[in-house]
């Protein structure tokens, strides 16, 4: 039962990653690409935590935390640059 639900959730997540990547490639302006990058960061954090549960490795949660912090700082810096203040 748990295996089937994990497979369904992974399918949903990869479909979301596919659409976000499509917007990241197609996006007309730089702000659209940054929004897609923000979405990709959050989906990848959830994916890393779910993979740490599947593989039973505790260390992947730390990897997800560091990845989230770095993605957050990156999005803030890109937004600051788009404003023209950097």
């Amino acid at each position, binding site marked *: 039962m748990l295996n089937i639900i994990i497979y369904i*959730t992974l399918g949903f997540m990869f479909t979301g990653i596919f*659409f976000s990547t499509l917007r990241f490639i197609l996006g007309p302006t730089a702000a659209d690409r940054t929004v897609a990058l923000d979405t990709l960061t959050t989906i990848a954090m959830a994916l890393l935590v*779910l993979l740490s549960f599947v593989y039973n490795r505790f260390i992947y949660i730390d990897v997800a935390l560091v990845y989230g912090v770095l993605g957050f700082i990156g999005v803030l810096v890109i937004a600051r640059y788009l404003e023209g203040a950097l």
Partner: protein
Amino acid sequence: MNDILDIFGMILLLIGGIFLFLGGLGIFRMPDTYNRLQAGTKATTLGGMSVILSVGILEPGWFIKTLVLVIFIALANPISSHALAHANYKRGNKPYLKGGPEYDQYRKVFEPEVKETKDNTTEKVKEEETA
């Protein structure tokens, strides 16, 4: 007790997966940058928090660390969304409004004299109507 927690975690996992998928779909299909921002940030916040909390419920030894991650997502995602919307507005990318540009309430933050011009235009329209 353990079975109830497992079923709760599975339901939370499925809800999180559906909301992550909806965030990706919304960011692909929405027509405007602000609509994409709204769809891609709020749905993804709920989906990510739900998936991470479900892992913490299914494996009770990891609950504290997943709680730290959930609190980090709840704090960081609205901040980045707000910074992106502010930067996008300041860059000159105006949102599409059905009633015209005078319905743009956020413009008063950057141009404080907009309110007076808006009143002048409405007064002019009234004068024309009376004449």
